[in-house]
């Protein structure tokens, strides 16, 4: 009996994996703002909230100045991953990389703020309204 059950589980391992991952993805969407398009839960084409439609903004803070900086191309992949799943470690790592981007200020950056935004739409007019998904201020040592 035990052997038969185990055999059935192994035989249907792909199905078991699909269900476990898809349920985990739903949990992550609800708890960590994972984009419904990402993570293997089959939420693609159910919402406009795809990772590539999210926007990452970064601000370098120096004493008395808050300057928005453009995210360099070399950090595009890290920014896209942060947009898809904006966890604290991911945003903090991105912020520390962004702290190295040169700014006109002479003082070294005190902190970097990284924000992830998405669009919400009015169902009648399709008028877009930006909504913040997550924001994190990372102090720079």
């Amino acid at each position, binding site marked *: 009996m035990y052997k038969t059950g185990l*055999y059935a589980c*192994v*035989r*249907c*391992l*792909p*199905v078991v*994996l*699909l*269900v476990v*991952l*898809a349920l985990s993805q*739903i949990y992550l*969407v609800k708890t960590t703002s*994972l*984009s*419904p*398009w*990402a*993570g*293997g*839960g*089959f*939420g*693609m*084409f*159910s*919402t*406009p*909230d795809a*990772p590539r*439609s999210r926007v990452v903004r970064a601000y370098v803070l120096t004493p008395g100045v808050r300057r928005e900086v453009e995210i360099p191309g070399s950090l595009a992949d890290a920014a*896209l*991953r942060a947009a*898809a*799943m904006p966890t604290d470690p991911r945003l903090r790592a991105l912020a520390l990389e962004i702290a190295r981007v040169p700014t006109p200020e002479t003082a070294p950056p005190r902190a970097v703020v990284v924000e992830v935004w998405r*669009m919400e*739409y009015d*169902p009648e*007019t*399709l*008028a*877009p*309204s*930006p909504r913040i998904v997550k924001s994190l201020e990372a102090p720079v040592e």
Partner: protein
Amino acid sequence: MSDAAARTKGGFRRGLAAIKGMDAFELALRPTLVDLLLRPVGGWTVRPFTLALAALGLLAPGLLRAPVLWLGLTVLTGARVVLDWPLPDNHAYLLFYWCLAVTLSLTLTPGGPGKTLSLNARLLIGLVFAFSVLWKLALSPDFMNGTFFGVTMLADPRFEGFTRVAGGLSAEGYDALREFVLGAAVPYGAADVPEIPPRLAALSHFLTYWTITIEGGVAVFFLLPARLAASKLRDYLLVIFCVTTYAVANVDGFGWLLLAMGAAQAGEGRGEKEKNRVRLLYVAAFLLVIFYRYYTFSRLL
């Protein structure tokens, strides 16, 4: 009938007979490898190895059913999901599950791997569509009210040809709506909000209900026990889904994968004649999806 016409007809008949003569297992594995060659997956660490294994499987007939080849593909497609996490599309996951199903079928049941593969194919397809419907019906607030299709038809450039042809939009009208939806005018005043053309709004509502109906149908009929007569409808629904959906949203790699998986289980609960008919349908749909990338709605503009 001229000699050339007779030869052509004979060649066509032999082609059909060859497809009918293939077993379901082979009819699923070959299109999977073709899919991997036409739409290679992963970055430089994964892609060349995946391509080499897929090419080997097609070039050396003895390797098509070699467990080691499919184990390699399972490891590579799984590695791609892990390395790119959380960004891979849904079909990257499905490709990994499918390669794993083929490996398990070849390893666990060397005498008759068809049944294990068929069971996995049916359940995987049913569950993919069930989760997709769950998202659209219950978890996403943007789908059933038409927002998703309204926005996507304008914002996603892959939909431009279809949106302009079916929605009756001029190039200027489309561009203006696209800029608005992408938020170029944010912040905007009430006067800046353009009117969504009624035909476009009706189209997005039609697509919403069509999608939920066809996806729900595929989920239900694939998850029904194969012994029930009604479950025979499943293959026709999957083929209808693929030939309609991928004409509009050209994600051909996903379409080919679903059709390959469909072919693996097409024989379940069917007589010889109907089984052959359904197999030919899958092959025809697979070929049709190839043309969708080149004969797009944009060509009608």
